[in-house]
């Protein structure tokens, strides 16, 4: 039997998903005997031209992490789709936009101004910003175009499976790879390596249906390590987030930030979290509610920290 041909690629992401794969450690070496890695820019030397010269559907599975923010990301997503039998959106960014999608709260112009002109440490008297083409004496130089709106992988390519998480946790990656290699594949579009229940089912903290009259931010308090953080007034995305990670953040006494994405059949994770949070508000009058609502300092960054590109509204209006 020929060994399955596997590709990994990163697009707009931090690289944490690649580290999560490397963290498999010795298991990765065992895996090496079972699979052929044909493309993995972060760890092995491959050129895009190698990929372009492959016949279509030559790769068995591509694990694609990262969102689509540049024309290079888009090109690789479409190229890998054409060359692969299965395309897996790997990690929160590929599935839902992830942290890079918070760029959708700003325009390309605002981002360029901030990065290349306005930050106090920037020294750019000629106000130079990246151009896609530049004519140097040696010839024309090009860099990818930066898009105004960050998109998810499935907005630009047909995705077979989703593996959420920032990053997906080790044991889940092993399980996913095992499932795919076993050949008994779940239906297309399935979310792999995660639970179908909310994180609260996995969380060991004690829940008592207590209401809250005041919200506190993490730095303002030292939470009781035994009680539900939401009941202590700390916004925890647990109720609106898929489990499967083993509640790692909660184990470190830190609230869930929602990286495993929405539960099955939920369209918009942020809207669900908003409902969940409002339902534990202990207030009846409009004034009290207004005050509570205003104490959510950054609603988009809180409710859509990882999911803005996959939300209904997708970005802010300029």
């Amino acid at each position, binding site marked *: 039997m020929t060994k399955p041909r596997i590709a990994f690629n990163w697009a707009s992401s931090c690289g944490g998903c690649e580290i999560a794969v490397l963290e498999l450690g010795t298991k990765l070496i065992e895996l090496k005997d079972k699979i052929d890695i044909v493309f993995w820019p972060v760890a092995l030397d491959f050129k895009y031209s190698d990929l372009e010269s492959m016949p279509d559907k030559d790769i068995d599975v591509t694990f694609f992490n990262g969102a689509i923010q540049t024309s290079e990301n888009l090109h690789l997503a479409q190229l890998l789709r054409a060359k692969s039998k299965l395309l897996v959106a790997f990690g929160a960014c590929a599935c839902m936009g992830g942290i890079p999608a918070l760029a959708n709260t700003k325009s390309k112009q605002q981002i360029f101004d901030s990065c290349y002109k306005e930050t106090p440490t920037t020294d750019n008297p000629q106000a130079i910003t990246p151009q896609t083409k530049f004519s140097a004496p040696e010839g024309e130089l090009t860099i990818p175009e930066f898009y105004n709106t960050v998109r998810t992988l499935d907005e630009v390519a047909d995705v077979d499976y989703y593996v959420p998480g920032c990053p997906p946790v080790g044991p889940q990656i092993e399980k996913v790879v095992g499932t795919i290699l076993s050949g008994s594949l779940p239906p297309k579009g399935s979310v792999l390596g995660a639970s179908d229940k909310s994180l609260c089912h996995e969380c060991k903290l004690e829940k008592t249906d207590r209401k809250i009259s005041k919200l506190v931010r993490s730095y303002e308090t030292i939470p009781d390590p035994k009680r539900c953080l939401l009941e202590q007034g700390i916004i925890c995305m647990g109720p609106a987030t898929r489990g499967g990670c083993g509640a790692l953040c909660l184990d470190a006494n830190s609230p869930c930030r929602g990286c495993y994405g929405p539960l099955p059949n939920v369209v918009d994770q942020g809207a669900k979290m*908003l409902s969940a949070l409002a339902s534990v508000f202990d207030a009846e009058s409009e004034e009290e509610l207004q005050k509570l*609502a205003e104490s959510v300092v950054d609603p988009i960054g809180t409710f859509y920290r990882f999911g803005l590109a996959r939300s209904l509204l997708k*970005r802010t209006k300029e």
Partner: protein
Amino acid sequence: MVTDLATRFEPRIVGFLCRWCAYTGADLAGLSRIKYPPNITPIRVNCSGRVDPMLVMKAFAAGADGVLIAGCHPGDCHYINGNVKTMRRFKLLEQLLSQFGIEKERVRLEWVSASEGGRYARIVESMTEEIRSIGPLNWKQKVVIPA
């Protein structure tokens, strides 16, 4: 004047009306032949508490210029406190939508009883005029698509 009417912007407002009060109030407005703008598309829901914030966002994403949620006055809810639950969510929703850049005028929560046909008509009228003056939203074409 005629051309003015032909070219002026007509807002599209989605109205989530609770079955027991606001929808009956809207019905009364019709039965009483009260004139009000035809810009609202009413959707009957059993309770204003049933209106998930997702539905409001979906309406905007699908092209609505405004969304009205209308339910029973506090204390009059057919399901005891569904409207209070709506109110709890609504303040937070307003906060979120304003961060998305959606003007405050575009989304409203109002209490309309079954006998307040006139009040319902006035709400639709004022909302239509306010949204007309700030212009179309056109979320998909103007905000999302220019990638």
